[in-house]
């Protein structure tokens, strides 16, 4: 009989040990350890792109966790994601003009929502709304920004070609983007030296959907940033006629040379002297002086 009792006690101890281990695992080693036991309130925000944000991702202010993402939904027919955030009640002074941004922890980590406080005097209440949001930056855009030039446009509808002659193409290369108002609308298809006219003929492939560029637009070679790669920029003119396939842009401005730039800074004029009209690298002539 006493054998029976010791089994029951021992077995009971074993079961208790097992559950204690489970409780330890659940509370100490998992994300439950991070979540506050306190009560919370919910606010929502809309994002154009949630990237890889997941439910239960943390919500942080100044890097400190204040809550978590409760749900992410997309209403049919809309193209913005509705994200509900569950914030600990003790952080109840979030200004209504705060900005919610989706950040990535580390280089390849999980994404979380960061809140930057605004200056408003009113605070978001339970069920409230944060209007200012910044969506997650997809990887491609970021890499594109890194590598410069902002990327070329997708020539989805096909392209048409126009030509322009430059006295100096600088470091412009084939495939460099063609931009208008900073937006890429095509790319450089080819660069050839013209043995007769002694300048460079650049063929631009422009996306067909931009077919209303005035044919008196001027085209220049600019550099992105201080030492970035070069691209072709088109400044629209005023002509009522549009560029068509095979047209030639007449008004061109060649690439700036580094030396000339530095020279402009250092001296009032260029090392090559003569201040005739337009100074040195005044480029608005088809055949300028070098």
């Amino acid at each position: 009989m006493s054998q029976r009792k010791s089994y029951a006690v021992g077995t009971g101890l074993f079961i208790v040990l097992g559950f204690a281990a489970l409780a330890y695992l659940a509370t100490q080693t998992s994300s439950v350890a991070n979540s506050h036991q306190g009560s919370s309130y919910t606010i929502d925000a809309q994002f154009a792109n949630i990237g890889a944000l997941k439910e239960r991702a943390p919500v942080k202010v100044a890097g400190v966790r204040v809550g978590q993402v409760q749900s992410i939904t997309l209403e049919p027919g809309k193209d913005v994601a509705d994200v509900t955030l569950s914030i600990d009640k003790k952080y109840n002074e979030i200004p209504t003009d705060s900005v919610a941004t989706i950040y990535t922890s580390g280089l390849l980590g999980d994404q979380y929502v960061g809140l930057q406080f605004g200056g408003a005097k009113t605070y978001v209440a339970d069920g409230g709304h944060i209007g200012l949001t910044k969506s997650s930056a997809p990887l491609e855009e970021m890499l594109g920004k890194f590598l410069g030039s902002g990327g070329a446009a997708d020539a989805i509808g096909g392209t048409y070609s126009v030509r322009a002659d430059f006295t100096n193409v600088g470091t412009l290369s084939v495939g460099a983007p063609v931009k208008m108002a900073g937006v890429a609308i095509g790319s450089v298809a080819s660069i050839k030296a013209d043995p007769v006219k002694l300048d460079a003929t650049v063929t631009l492939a422009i996306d067909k959907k931009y077919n209303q560029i005035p044919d008196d637009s001027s085209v220049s070679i600019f550099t992105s940033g201080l030492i970035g790669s070069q691209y072709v920029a088109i400044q629209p003119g005023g002509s009522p006629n549009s560029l068509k396939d095979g047209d030639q842009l007449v008004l061109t401005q060649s690439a700036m040379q580094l030396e000339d730039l530095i020279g402009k800074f250092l001296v009032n004029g260029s090392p090559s002297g003569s201040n005739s009209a337009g100074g040195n690298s005044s480029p608005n002539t088809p055949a300028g002086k070098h």
Partner: protein
Amino acid sequence: MSAQMPHKSIVLQSLAQIGNCGLFLLRILAAVPSSLRHVRETVRQLWFVGAMSLTIIMTCGLFVGMVLGLQLYHVLAIFGGTSATGSVVALAIYRELGPVVTALLFAGRAGTSITAEIGLMRATDQIAAMEMMAVDPIAYVAAPRFLAGLIAMPLLCCVFCAMGIFGGHLVGVSWLGIDNGTFWSNMTSNVDVWDDIINGVMWKSVAFGAVVSLIAVFQGYTTPPTSEGVAYATTRTVVSSSIAILALDFVLTAFLM
């Protein structure tokens, strides 16, 4: 006969075994209500099957955790990610190594003892004596052991995992020098209670416990009641359990992920 015959009969034999095992499971489940009268017996079996396995489970859990900490640290060091050692150790243990290794150890220690015990009871007519005394041996002998295994496995798995974490911490922080806070914060932010602990540890270990206990009881019950029969049956328990555990592990992982 042609050389194909032995092959065919092994496959057919295995299929027949699996089928018989399944039918046996039905018999056990049918007997569970009446075995609830024998709660004392189930408690007794839980002691022998569960509590007595604690030593091996805890020791092996500790060593597995230590080895994981060591191995993973060195691999992560290649990518400069040693701060993630804690979470990788925890995830590896919770999702795979915990349930699987515990189940394999369980099969080797408790499974074989169940098989041997039941086989010997058959060989010494104890099962027949029970039938003679109008006690259903399935309800008195088989079902309590099955239930005990089913209950003990998840508990043992939790203990294994806890020891594994401890072992990983021991190696990672105390020996290899990972920062204690980093170890834990990285782990807690990457381990999810529902996906990893409940899905990985609990469901898997319950399933493995059922399979191992069923095979152990089945082999003991259906073996020819001779000494060589019993020896062969214990071997088959370990082999069949191991195969079943790993196959089921794959299925469950695919299903739960």
